[in-house]
């Protein structure tokens, strides 16, 4: 059998399963605990390696260890927005209900990670740079991202009609995505106070693997945490949205 067709077929079926709230709910019943578990394992390993095994930095000493929170949360703040924008576009183009759920449920998680990146960054900047805030390109654009997340949430809740709110929020998510490349490339485009890329740079990471491994573990762990929160919130939302449908009523009857 043509492998391309098989893969295509697989994704096609996955798409259809995810597109249906009921199928999504079934899948997420399984994935949510798995994601939660993976999150716990990976972050535990990452924390241990990062705090106790990784060597101190030659300049910053132990205070560099805040990197293990700052960088994963900063990465996720960008990643989640990309997920939101993609889901928003899918929802608007293919009118897929679940895509909107992803948009709405991701926003507060993304906002939390953005806030975390800002806070840890400030805490880190105070001793290292000598200031906790500058109107520097990276910092300003990350702050704008936080406002965008908050704006998306506010917009959704402003509508009485859920479906209208979903679509409006999706439009905003798609429009706001221009900020992501700006944040990412800001350190190259401006002579920023914030450092350039350490990990994903031409010529390999500027960091020994003893420091890098915990960072990647933490990043992966945080990503699973996002997945965990997303599925949890999405489950709730699906149940709420579909509370008048047969399958949800059956589900409730089963519980009782």
């Amino acid at each position, binding site marked *: 059998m043509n492998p391309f067709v098989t893969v295509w077929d697989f994704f096609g079926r996955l798409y259809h399963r995810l597109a249906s709230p009921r199928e999504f709910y079934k899948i997420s019943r399984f994935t949510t605990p798995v994601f939660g578990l993976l999150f716990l394992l990976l972050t535990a390993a990452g924390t241990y390696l990062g705090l106790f095994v990784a060597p101190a930095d030659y300049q910053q000493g132990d205070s560099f260890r805040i990197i293990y929170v700052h960088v994963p949360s900063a990465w996720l703040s960008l990643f989640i927005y990309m997920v939101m924008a993609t889901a928003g576009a899918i929802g608007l183009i293919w009118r897929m209900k679940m895509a909107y759920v992803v948009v709405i449920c991701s926003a507060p998680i993304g906002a939390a990670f953005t806030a975390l990146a800002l806070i840890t960054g400030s805490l880190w900047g105070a001793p290292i740079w000598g200031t906790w805030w500058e109107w520097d390109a990276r910092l300003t654009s990350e702050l704008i991202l936080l406002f965008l997340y908050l704006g998306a949430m506010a917009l959704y809740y402003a509508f*009485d*009609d859920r*479906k*209208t709110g979903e679509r409006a929020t999706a439009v905003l998510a798609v429009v706001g995505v221009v900020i992501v490349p700006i944040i990412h490339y800001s350190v190259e485009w401006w002579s920023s106070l914030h450092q350039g890329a350490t990990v994903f740079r031409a010529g390999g990471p500027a960091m020994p693997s003893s420091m890098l491994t915990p960072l990647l573990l933490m990043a992966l762990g945080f990503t699973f945490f996002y997945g965990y929160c997303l599925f949890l919130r999405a489950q709730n939302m699906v149940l709420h949205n579909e509370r*008048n449908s047969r399958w949800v009523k059956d589900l409730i009857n089963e519980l009782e």
Partner: protein
Amino acid sequence: MSAHEISAADSHGHCLAANNLACQRGERWLFEGLNLTVSSGTCLHVIGANGSGKTSLLRMLCGISRIDRGDITWQQKNIAGNDDYFSGLAYLGHKDGLKNEFTAAENLEFYQRLNFENDPAKVDEILAEMGILACADLPTFQLSFGQRRRLALARLLLVPRPLWVLDEPFTGIDQAGRNLIERLCVEHLAAGGILILTNHQSLRSGPLKPFLNELEL
């Protein structure tokens, strides 16, 4: 007057159909599984109590409201993004789409130009036919309620359109005006047009009777 031209252009007839249509407002489903077909020369009178969803249905049929479930077709083609459909549609709702700042004539002229025409003489003719020529140069906010409604209805005469969707067209219109509009509707239908309207009084005793279909929501 203008209605005659439709039949010349489309002797084969038109057909608007809705399949399994549903409308949700808040948590309530106003209607579900609604099927309807309206074809050339028929008038569909949507009947229902206040708040039963007549306006919502009409707005769905015009492609203004989101369709919660089901689909609507015009000549077997879905109406979403269907230019053919929208060039054949005229809609008048509770909101009249008139600008208070413009005079009556200016308002009509804008809609005329929107319809790819530019003929001030015809605008005056239409205003005269609707009995509001005297108000042509008054700013719209100075018109009486009925005059305003007449102005909104005057849009129907700008260019011939096979499908008229009218939400309570007789609101605020006096008896003479009502007769006039009924006559226009009859001409429109006789020429092969389609008319979908709501009205709180029965139309069975009026001139629209021969064309009438009723849909109770």
